């Protein structure tokens, strides 16, 4: 078996643990992950969460997912080799000004995101952390790429211990926000995140941006109304204390909040941002929504 440096060469550092490299005429992105630390010592050997995540990445083959090509080990380090995305792919696609020049492009990219989420959900794989920073777009070719797991986010902490940060909260669903650190993710949470991204495409700013769970929930309920047992059966047992609900609020008229959106778009957006996770549209159904007719 070829060693790392025999197989790949022409290393060019991109960031602290990410390199561009080459093999024959092809370029790759290589990410270094250390698998030795105090926590891992107790486990003996390669950490389980790394094995599980990589074994999933290895099975995924989708044009809109950054592909994991190879995995190599060298002592205490793991080298993940991903397909290389050239400069035409802009990270954090919502900051790309060209995004707002062509309305049709938004629909195309939204469709690709939902198609990818449906592909993953069909395999019971959850994204959990879908946000614009993990999405790269090539505006010229109109191809979008989602960087899953290690490709965009460090492997240094297991998913179960994923820590909260301000940026991540914006795309968390109400059922997750209600759980305060006891995060039980499931597929509707990913769809909610896509709904937030959809709204952000339209407004040119994050749909919800509160710095804490409580403030975020308040923003959500200000726009979509405070949930009731009628709109979200079981919500009172989920939220625990009434303090999280705040004073009752009526939902705003989405048509006035998103004047640029046609009725089909409003329908899709409202279904993705449905407060009740059980009533929220699935990714599989969303890709078939009339809004995408002609895509």
């Amino acid at each position: 078996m070829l060693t790392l440096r025999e197989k790949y060469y022409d290393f060019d550092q991109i960031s602290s643990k990410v390199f561009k490299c080459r093999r024959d005429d092809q370029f790759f992105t290589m990410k270094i992950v250390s698998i030795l630390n105090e926590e891992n010592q107790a486990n003996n050997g390669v950490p389980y969460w790394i094995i599980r995540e990589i074994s999933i990445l290895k099975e995924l083959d989708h044009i809109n997912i950054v592909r994991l090509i190879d995995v190599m080990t060298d002592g205490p380090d793991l080298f993940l080799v991903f397909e290389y995305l050239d400069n035409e792919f802009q990270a954090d696609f919502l900051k790309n000004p060209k995004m707002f020049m062509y309305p049709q492009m938004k629909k195309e990219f939204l469709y690709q995101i939902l198609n990818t989420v449906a592909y993953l959900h069909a395999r019971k794989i959850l994204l959990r952390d879908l946000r614009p920073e993990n999405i790269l777009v090539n505006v010229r070719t109109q191809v979008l790429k989602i960087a899953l797991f290690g490709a965009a986010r460090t492997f240094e902490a297991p998913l179960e211990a994923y820590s909260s940060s301000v940026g991540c909260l914006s795309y968390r669903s109400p059922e997750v926000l209600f759980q305060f650190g006891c995060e039980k993710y499931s597929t509707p949470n990913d769809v909610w995140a896509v709904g937030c991204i959809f709204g952000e495409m339209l407004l040119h700013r994050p749909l919800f941006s509160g710095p804490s769970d409580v403030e975020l929930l308040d923003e959500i309920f200000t726009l979509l109304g405070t949930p009731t047992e009628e709109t979200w059966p079981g919500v009172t047992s989920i939220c625990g204390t009434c303090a999280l609900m705040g004073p009752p609020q009526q939902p705003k008229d989405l048509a006035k909040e998103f004047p640029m959106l046609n009725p089909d778009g409003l329908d899709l957006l409202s279904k993705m941002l449905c407060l009740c996770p059980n009533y929220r549209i699935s990714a599989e159904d969303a890709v078939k929504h009339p809004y995408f007719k002609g895509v």
Partner: protein
Amino acid sequence: MEFDLENPLENLHSDDVSYLFLIESDHTPSQNHSQTLKARDLDISVRRELISLISQLSCALDPVLSYLAINYLDRFLTNQGILQPKPWALRLVAVSCISLTVKMMGTEYPATDIQALLNQSDGGIIFETQTIQRMEALILGALQWRMRSITPFSFVAFFIALMGLKESPMGQVLKNRASEIIFKSQREIRLWGFKPSIIAASALLCASHELFPFQYPFFLKAISDSSYVNKEIVEQCYKVIQDIAIEEEYSSALNGVSRSDTPINVLDHHFLSSESEKTNGITVANATDSPLGDLKRRKITGCGGNNPTILNSWIQPCERECEK
């Protein structure tokens, strides 16, 4: 992202089954390697030794766990072979396969229990963290980190649905018996060349022939009509599995007789075993002539206890405990 042998890729839609059939060869020792391995008698005996080790070390755990560990072992042997069949190396491979399996299966077992198990004083070998990590990394690399193995269990539900028995008591009975057959036939080298889907189909047909002989022709037609399986190959695999089942019954009867552990019975067993293996196209060195003969005798112990006896005898008690 829990891992489940029946749904290694967690497919939810029926049309995604085609994906399982498409890539199952990537998770299976290949036909070519099986032929190559047959030319390496030492590897066959090493495999048998390793399977015994894995069964011994993991018999206190879920039988599915030892199944997956042996799957990893087989895929590893396909890629790497064993260059130095020394006792410590064999044990390290077995321990590492079990460790990787526990990590993939989830955290049902407390880490301390696994740790104590893996560091059994039996054999007097305790592996350092770095040693296990290096072996794990070696195995992961050989398997290309594709640890969500596709096994026959991935296809059983599909074929039961084809047979028209989805969610029926009859289907459940067939599934249970087929699963038992799949578990027991895993150690047979003769099945190496067959894809998991073929093994699943054949095991179900064996189970249906055994339990529901009058419906068997109908089930055979339902599976044969599937575009996902090759009828001739299923027939070949079916015969091998049937032979294994017959030998299993004969071996059980023989073990009962040989409990007296007299020299005559031991010799009879060697003779019969050797003859049986030859007739199936595999020539394995007789135990008394094998360079590993002494090694085998020293390493054979009962589950958790010191109980020297011939190989097949001690496997039975262990298996029974595993199945509880």
